[in-house]
């Protein structure tokens, strides 16, 4: 597992390398990894490229088994993987291609506040938010779902939260899928998933999930930034969370259901277990996964509400008066039915994005009217010591990558290795000297999530920009971070 990968990677261009179909018999399409020469060394350090080759075995896969530059080893699918399958050609849906944290994703809020206004008060603001936002292992939220209410969350997603008073209708316009996937069927959800999820709406979770106060420190595309309401020196807030225990249980339930039909001779790894989209198991999983995706959108909507409430309390003003509008919300662990071009023809495909973000171009019908001219915002969180990026989707992402791009920095070091090698007090001092305030719920979170445990997100973003599948809009620096 820790040995390096020595298989073939043929250069397509400076930003893309191919694993030929001939590498392993059983690959239905070639693999393609977006990366530059410098990153390949790190990518070869674990077995992630082998996983790109393995997912090329999936029935009905079209064009390529793709991986984004933040690729790293996952179980089954690699993290950073994009796989599209054709339902008309016995294409499958794979719970492992979405992952346990269904609709893990990120949202970005802007404010009217400038860095100059709050530079000396970040610590007090973070302390207040840390009180308001339930974070960490086993934390519970203030909402209990019972009876019909729980079904409404699963069907209406972020819309349910808005109708409960956690936000406003226009927030939904700026959420991928307007905050709810259609086709969610609560009848396909086990009682165990309900039990695991009932107290977790409005909780951040643990590990790499976070809520971060940031400042925009660099603008690359002034015109596009204007459309998103962003300017240099502006305070923004980023929230990263998912479907919590509810989604984990759905993944687990359906892996087990599908394993009954698993055929070792056809797929190289049990974790790739899947079912045709046009089968009962496939359809049931899609309906249950949609419930979890909607749960996650409701969760991020409630978290955003807690952030707005915290800011309102801190500044003694309404959040509306502080200009706390949602820029956008993206999912980065999900499977979606989308239309894409294959051999010149438009086809409905099932696009799996596991640690990858949708990146639709200007004029795509699924992006908000206000953003039509510029494309869909793509939110790329970095580690807590460096920076995060806002990108937009492009036509080339549509042509080459099923409208997809990267999702974050990508881990470089295991959690245990980080705990062993990172000196927490040195790191805390370093972050403090950079003007970054950190509050963590977990004892080891600071070391596990240390900047050195991650790739530099700038390298990742430069590759997707170089490849033309996204465009950099602006860069944000963390000021205050809450980690679970």
């Amino acid at each position: 597992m820790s040995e390096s990968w020595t298989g073939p990677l043929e250069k397509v261009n400076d930003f893309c390398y191919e694993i030929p179909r001939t590498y392993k018999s059983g690959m239905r399409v070639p693999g393609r990894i977006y990366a530059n020469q410098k990153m390949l060394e790190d990518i070869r350090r674990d077995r992630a490229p082998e996983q790109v080759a393995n997912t090329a075995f999936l029935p009905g896969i079209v064009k390529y088994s793709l991986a984004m530059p933040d690729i790293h080893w996952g179980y089954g699918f690699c993290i950073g993987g994009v796989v599209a399958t054709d339902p008309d050609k016995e294409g499958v849906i794979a719970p492992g291609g979405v992952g346990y944290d269904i609709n893990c994703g990120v949202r970005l809020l802007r404010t009217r506040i400038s860095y100059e206004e709050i530079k000396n008060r970040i610590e007090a603001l973070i302390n207040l938010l840390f009180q308001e936002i339930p974070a960490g292992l086993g934390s519970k939220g203030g909402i209990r779902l019972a009876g019909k209410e729980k079904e409404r969350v699963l069907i209406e997603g972020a819309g349910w939260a808005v109708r409960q008073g956690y936000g406003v209708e226009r927030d939904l316009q700026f959420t991928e899928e307007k905050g709810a996937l259609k086709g969610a069927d609560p009848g396909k959800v086990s009682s165990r998933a309900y039990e695991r999820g009932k107290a977790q709406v409005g909780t951040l979770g643990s590990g790499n999930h976070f809520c971060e106060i940031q400042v925009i420190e660099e603008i690359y595309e002034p015109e596009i930034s204007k459309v998103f309401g962003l300017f240099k020196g502006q305070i923004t807030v980023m929230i990263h969370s998912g479907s919590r225990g509810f989604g984990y249980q759905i993944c687990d339930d359906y892996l087990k259901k599908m394993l009954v039909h698993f055929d070792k001779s056809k797929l190289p790894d049990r974790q790739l277990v899947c079912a045709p989209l046009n089968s009962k198991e496939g359809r049931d999983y899609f309906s249950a996964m949609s419930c979890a995706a909607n749960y996650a959108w409701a969760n991020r909507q409630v978290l955003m509400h807690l952030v707005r409430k915290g800011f309102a309390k801190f500044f003694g003003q309404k959040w509306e008066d502080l200009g706390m509008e949602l820029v956008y919300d993206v999912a980065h662990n999900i499977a979606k039915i989308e239309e894409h071009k294959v051999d010149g023809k438009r086809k409905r495909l099932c696009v799996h994005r596991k640690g990858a973000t949708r990146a639709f171009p200007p004029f795509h019908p699924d992006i908000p009217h206000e953003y039509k001219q510029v494309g869909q915002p793509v939110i790329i969180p970095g580690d807590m010591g460096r920076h995060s990026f806002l990108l937009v989707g492009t036509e080339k992402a549509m042509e080459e990558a099923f409208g997809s791009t990267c999702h974050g920095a990508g881990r470089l070091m295991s959690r245990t290795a980080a705990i062993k090698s990172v000196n927490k007090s040195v790191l805390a001092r370093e972050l403090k000297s950079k003007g970054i305030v950190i509050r963590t719920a977990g004892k080891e979170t600071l070391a596990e999530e240390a900047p050195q445990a991650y790739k530099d997100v700038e390298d990742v973003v430069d590759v997707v920009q170089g490849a033309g599948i996204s465009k950099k809009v602006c860069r944000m620096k963390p000021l205050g971070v809450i980690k679970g």
Partner: protein
Amino acid sequence: MRGYELLEHTADIGLRVRGKDIEEIFIYAAEGMFAIIAGTEGIETREEIKIECEAEDIEELLVNWLSELLYCFNVKRILGKEFFIEKLEENRVKGGVKGEEFDEERHLLLNEIKGVTYHNLRIEKKGEMWEAEVIFDV
């Protein structure tokens, strides 16, 4: 060596377990999983929960057994200290866990395990001993 050790992974945590028979594999794997979830100090055996599950083969049975224990923790908040097997066959295990409900004052949680994965899952005999590997999504 009998017992468990943690495996290094970029994004996840794995366990390598060794035992004199499969029963020990099941017990050490459960101990290892709870050592990932929480500090083992201060857990007492105040409650007992019985577990019974089935699977297609012995490897999947190990995952199901661990998933059941994980469920006990996630929903009933039971931290396991001692594990026991009453009956173990190729497709079925009957056993349980002794432990107590998580108490913020006395117990320390370490990691959230999202799921027990099937990736690189194996149980095999090595010489006189049995060895297993299992990976958790954390």
